[in-house]
């Protein structure tokens, strides 16, 4: 299956990309995406542990399972306000 990954703020800068498609085996969860991103972008590896994740604009945990076409966002520590 294929999902869309969105990156923001420091993660986007370090990776040098704000959005990418990602092919995953059926049943893959958020933790699997984190591993894949670490391999693709070594420069963000150290930051991913501090990040939260959202599927289709809702916060989820590392065990959340992805579906074809999902939008998975990597959310570094927020600092609005």
């Amino acid at each position: 299956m294929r999902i869309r990954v969105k990156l923001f703020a420091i993660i986007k800068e370090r990776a040098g990309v704000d959005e990418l498609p990602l092919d995953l085996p059926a049943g893959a969860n958020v933790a699997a995406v984190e591993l894949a991103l670490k391999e693709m972008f070594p420069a963000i590896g150290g930051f991913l542990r501090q990040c939260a994740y959202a599927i289709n604009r809702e916060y989820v945990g590392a065990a959340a399972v992805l579906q074809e076409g999902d939008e998975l966002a990597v959310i570094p520590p927020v600092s609005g306000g």
Partner: protein
Amino acid sequence: MARIVTELQNAPIDVAAALAPVYDAAAGGVTVFLGTTRAERNANGRDLIALDYEAYEEMAKSQLAALAAEASRRWPIVALTILHRLGRVALAEPSVLIAVACPHRAEAFDACRWIIDTLKKDAAIWKKEVWADGSGTWVHPQ
């Protein structure tokens, strides 16, 4: 039903215009919180010149709307406006405005405080400090 406005905006916040829809004969108090860019100096002795704001816009918009709806369940809110800036916010300019109209002041203060605290904790918005030498630092809250 509370009258609610929530926006992410690139344009500067016009405080008077933002407050216009909050005034209401059912309210005895309106609390307004403005978050503004504070001058800083970094470890290299450079002065802060601005903050650059970025958001996961689709998510942050629905978060602001959900925040307003939840606040309206918790307090007897008559009208509520939440505005947050995107892009560059110069020193002393507001990056966020929260205005809460309630029948009595205590609930207006409580609701306003809860909204800004929750927004800062949850909303998918980030700021980068922009220094006089052109360097930038993403802000990472503790």
